[in-house]
C-alpha cells in the first residue's frame, strides 16, 4: 500500500511501558496530532490517551430500534393487502409478529454496529499512515506525530528520550 506524504515523525517502541511514557511526554508537550499503533488493544495505551467512549453504541441502539420498527412494520403493515386468515390465528397476531421483530432487531442492530465501526475506524483505508512500520502489527508499538518540518528534530529527540528504538521522519 502507498504511504501519503504527510510531514510526520514515526517512532517505533519495543516495550509497552516505553510507548505509554511517549504518550505522556507528548501530552505534556501539548501535542494533539498523534496516533498510537499497537498489535493488540491495551488498556494502558487507551488510558494514557484518554478521550470519550466510542460512539459505536449509539449506532447499535439506533440500528436495533430501526430493526424493531421494521419487524413490526413488515408484519403489521401489509395486513390490509394480505388479509388472509391462516391457521386459525387472528390477522393481527402479536406473539408470532414479536418473534419477527425480535430477529430484525438483532439483524439491524448488528448491521448498524458494523456500519458504526466502519465509519469511526475510517475503514477502508487505501493508504497506510505516513511512516507506518510493519513491526507495529506484530510485536512492536508505534507513535506517529504530525508536525511541521522545522519541529521534527525536537520531536525526534523527545521520542528517543522516551525509549523509542527507531525514529524516522516521513512525508518530507
Amino acid at each position, binding site marked *: *500500500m502507498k504511504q501519503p506524504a504527510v510531514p510526520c515523525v514515526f517512532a517505533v*517502541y*519495543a*516495550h*509497552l*511501558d*516505553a510507548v505509554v*511514557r511517549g504518550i505522556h511526554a507528548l501530552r505534556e508537550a501539548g501535542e494533539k496530532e498523534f*496516533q*498510537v*499503533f*499497537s*498489535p*493488540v*488493544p491495551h488498556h494502558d*495505551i*487507551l488510558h494514557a*490517551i484518554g*478521550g470519550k467512549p*466510542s460512539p*459505536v*453504541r449509539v449506532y*447499535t441502539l439506533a440500528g436495533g430500534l430501526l430493526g424493531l420498527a421494521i419487524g413490526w412494520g413488515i*408484519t403489521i403493515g*401489509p395486513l390490509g*393487502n*394480505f388479509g388472509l386468515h*391462516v391457521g386459525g390465528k387472528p390477522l393481527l397476531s402479536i406473539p*408470532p*409478529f414479536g*418473534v*419477527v421483530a*425480535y*430477529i*430484525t432487531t*438483532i*439483524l439491524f*442492530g*448488528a*448491521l448498524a*454496529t*458494523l456500519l458504526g*465501526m466502519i465509519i*469511526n*475506524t*475510517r*475503514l*477502508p*483505508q*487505501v493508504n*497506510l499512515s505516513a511512516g*507506518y512500520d*510493519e513491526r*507495529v*502489527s*506484530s*510485536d*512492536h508499538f508505534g507513535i506517529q506525530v504530525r508536525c511541521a518540518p522545522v519541529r521534527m528534530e525536537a520531536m525526534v529527540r523527545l521520542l528517543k*528520550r522516551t*525509549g523509542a528504538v527507531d525514529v524516522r521522519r516521513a512525508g518530507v
Partner: protein
Amino acid sequence: MDYKLSYTDADIDLMQTMRPAKRGYWFLLGFLFLLVLMGAGAWWAQIQTGMGLAGKNSPVGWAMYITTFVFWVGIAHSGTLISAILFLVRVRWRAAVYRSAEAVTVFGLMTAGLFPFIHLGRVWVAHWILPFPNFGGLWPNFRSPLAWDVLAITTYLTVSSTFFIVGMLPDLAVIRDRVKGWRKKVYGFLSQGWQGTDMQWKHYTAAYVFLAALATPLVISVHSIVSWDFAMSIVPGWHSTIFAPYFVAGAIHSGLAMVVLLLIPMRKAFRIERYITMHHLESLARFIIFTALVVGFAYAVEFFIAWYSGARFEKAIFLYRMMGDYAWAFWLLITTNVAAPMLFWFKRIRTSIPWLVVICICVEIGMWLERFVIIVTSLAHDFLPSAWGLYKPTPIDTMIVIGSFAWFFFLFMIFVKVLPAVSMWEVKEQLPPPGRGGAR
C-alpha cells in the same frame, strides 16, 4: 496455552497453518470435492426427475433433508457460544479456539442453508418466502414458524459472518505486513487498511463487544425457532413446550463435539499444540458432559410427560420410538449421545486423543439420529393408523447428505489454508506485552 510465549512466537507459529499445503492436504481436498460433486449431481438428478427420488412420501414428508438441516444448524451453535458468550464472560481459554469454532458456525449455516432449497423441490421459486413487494400478490405468512426460520437462519448467518470477518481484520493486517508479492496485495485488500491505531482499537473493541452481545441471544433463539417448526404443530411427539431448550442443548452438544473433531487434526497437522493444548480439549470435553446431561434429562422428561399426562397419542408415539420400526436408531442415539459422553468423567479418557475422537464421533452420529428419530417416527405414526407409513433412505438423498458433509469439511479445509485459523491478536492479548524497560 503457554503464557510464556512472545508476540513474535504467536505470529510465526500461528501463521504455520497458512504455509503451502503438502500432498496429503490436496489429496483430501480433492476427495472432498469429488464427494461434493456427487452430492450436487444427486441434487441435479432430483431437480430433473422430481422429489420422488428422495424417498419422501405421505405421511413422511420431512425426512433426511430436514434432519440434516436441523443437524447443521445445531453444529453452528457452538461457534457462537464459544466466540460470543465465552468472550462476554471473559473465559481465557476461548482465545485459541474461537476462530475455528466461528468457522464451524459460518460453514455449518452455509451447509444447513442448502437443505431448505433441496427439500423445496421447486427451488426456482424459493424467493417467494422473502418479504419483498411483487406483482404476484405474495407476502410471507409471518404467523408460520417456517417464515421465522427463514429470517432466523438468514440473520444468524449475517451476524455470525460479520463477527467472523470483523474478528479477523487485525490478523489479516499482520499477514499483510509479513508476506510479499501478490499475497501482500490480497491480504492488503482483505485487511482494508487496518493499522491498529488507538482510534481503530477503541471503536473496534466497542463494536466487537456489541456484536458479541447481539450474537448471544441468537444462540438461544435460532434453534428455539428451528424447534418451533415442529413444536407449533399438533403432531404427537412434536407438540411440546420443552422443545426449544431441548433443541438448544442438543445443538450445543453436537457443535462442541464438531469443534473438538476439527481442532484435534488441526493442532497436530500445523504443530500448534502450544496454543491449542490438552487443557482446551479437556475444557470442551467437560462442556460436553454438561450438554449430554441436559440432553439426557430432556429425553427423560419427554417420556415422563408422555406417560404422566395420560395423553394416548403421546404415549403411543414414545412407545413406538422405543419399540417400533426405528427403535434401533432410538437406542443408538441414547447410547451415543448420553451414555458415551459420560466416559468423559474419567480424566484419563477426556485427556486421551483417541477417546476424544471416538466419543465426539459418537455424539455426532447420535445427534443426527436424534433429529431423524424425532422427525421420522412422529410423521410415520401419527393419529390415524390408516395413514401410517415408513420412510427408507434412497441413494439420492443419501448422496446429498454425504455431499453436505463433504461440502462443510471442504470449506473448512480451504479456510485453514487461506485465513488465520487461530486468532493471533486475541492469543497475543493473553500473553504478557513485550518486555518492560527500554531506554530513558
